[in-house]
């Protein structure tokens, strides 16, 4: 099994590096934007940073939203590429004849996707710590005044794993191209539905009031003061993801040969 995992890591080393460096890269881009902003206006770097890192009415710091959420989204999408490179009939038949068999090959992919999520998680945590240091050095913020998303990162990892647990069997059964088309149709449908709702449906509030409410709810939740059923719901989601990921692996093993039969080459 170690050999197969090593093979996956070697083949996808660029994606793994990208998962690790995405968050600091986002921070660098943000600082570049701040620098450009300060050069184009009369503001000093400190003022431009203060202006851009906290977004007016919203209590959520823009810098953290940008540097912590974006890496999860991008690496989540990238993680699906690791299936495309092995989509040949020859490799599929070789895998089936391998002593570790289909189970070993699929297991290695599942482990790699989990590893990518963990690398993103660690990288985002370090980047947040870097942002805290910048806030302290540039804006003079103290430990108690800093907003941290650290408590939300494990949930983002679980959301990513949850989405992958649905994606992977589709990709294994229909191949990356067709699997992606099925997924895009589903997500596209949901997206169009959301836009229609945003245009014509009743919205929960104006001027970012909805986001402020979400943030308030998060603060209550973090303090352990939310209703009991919310903790049960979240715990249920986490355990569903853990067991779901395992069953998704089992399902993918079963669908593997059917998928191989459909490859072009």
């Amino acid at each position, binding site marked *: 099994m170690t050999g197969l995992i090593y093979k996956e890591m070697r083949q996808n080393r660029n994606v793994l590096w990208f998962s690790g460096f995405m968050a600091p890269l986002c921070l660098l881009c943000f600082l570049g934007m701040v620098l450009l902003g300060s050069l184009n206006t009369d503001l000093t770097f400190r003022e431009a940073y203060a202006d851009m890192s906290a977004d007016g009415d919203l209590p959520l710091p823009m810098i953290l939203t940008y540097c912590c959420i974006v890496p999860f989204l991008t690496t989540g999408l990238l993680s699906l590429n690791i299936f495309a490179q092995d989509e040949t009939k020859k490799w599929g038949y070789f895998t089936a004849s391998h002593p570790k068999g289909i189970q070993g090959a699929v297991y290695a992919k599942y482990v790699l996707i989990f590893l990518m999520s963990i690398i993103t998680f660690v990288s985002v945590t370090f980047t947040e710590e870097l942002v*805290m*240091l910048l806030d*302290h050095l540039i804006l003079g913020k103290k430990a108690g005044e800093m907003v941290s998303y650290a408590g939300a990162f494990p949930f983002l990892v679980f959301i990513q794993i949850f989405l992958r647990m649905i994606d992977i069997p589709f990709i294994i059964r229909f191949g990356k191209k067709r699997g992606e088309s099925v997924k895009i149709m589903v997500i596209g449908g949901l997206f169009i539905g959301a836009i229609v709702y945003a245009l014509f449906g009743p919205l929960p509030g104006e001027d970012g009031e909805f986001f402020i409410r979400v943030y308030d709810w998060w603060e209550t939740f973090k303090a352990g003061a939310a209703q009991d059923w919310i*903790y*049960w719901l979240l715990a249920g989601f986490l355990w569903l993801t*853990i067991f779901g990921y395992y069953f998704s692996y089992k399902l993918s093993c079963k669908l593997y040969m059917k998928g191989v039969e459909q490859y072009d080459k």
Partner: protein
Amino acid sequence: MTNKKPELKRLLLFLLFAFGIAWIPAIILNETVGYENWFNGPYVIFGLPTLYAPALANIITRKITKEGWENSLFHLNFKGHLKYYVLAVLLPFIQGLLSNVTATLVYGHWDFHEMLARQSLSDYFGSILLMFAMAPLLAWNTFGEEFGWRAYMNQKMEPLLGTTGTVIIGGIIWGVWHAPLTVKGHNFGTDYWGFPWLGIVFMSVWCIVMGVFLMWLTKKSGSIFPAAIMHICNNAGIPHLNRFFLSGFGDLEEYEQTIPQMFVCMIPYLILAAVFTYFMIRDGKKQKPVLQSDEPAEKPAPSAADLQNDERCLTE
């Protein structure tokens, strides 16, 4: 034939790096920005070398001594060992249960109504489910320590000192390694008799006890990850979930145990640790640890069964 001298040299080199890489930045940061600013505050990013010092020491020692990566224990080893991953989450929970129930029975009084008035059963079980699922994800925080102490130090120490010696001396080393934090009140505060020496001694005792379970998990699973998970479950507050069982202490926000009280509450866990040490000694007798020798061992003559086996392979 075994050769203890190179192993001892490797161990000493490892300890030099593990202490040096952790203590030098920790002492500098303690003196310049202050403990509260680097351990949880804005300078936390500079504290990272301290978290990963034992892992870095493992890597550097292996590189310098050209030891290679045999027995690095750096693999998941799920197959047949999943139960140790589950135990890694359960053991800190059991520790919390034992110590909090002991605290109530010895220093408080058992009042189930008070417990329920403070926290509902639904909230208690909800928190357990949430923490059990989430805490293992944070294991990268403690991986650095485990990849040093359990994946290197214990493996080098056991053939030299035996299982009991490794548990005790390894625990003391691990406890003393935490001293830059203990002297700043990280573990037990600063307001106690014998500060900071008693804190360092108690931290060593705690590390001996905790080290038993971590060593047992590592040896049984053949992987470093269950130990890293158990360590983070302990640090992330899984034992604290069982503060549910505290009663007779008034407001729990203000309740703090003294070091002697902590020791008394630790006794059941200490007994459990003794049982696990016995398991390790028993397993060790079945399978003696083998030291890497500088001279290649003589190859034993093939037995009749081996020859028969070879013959069968050739004919097949």
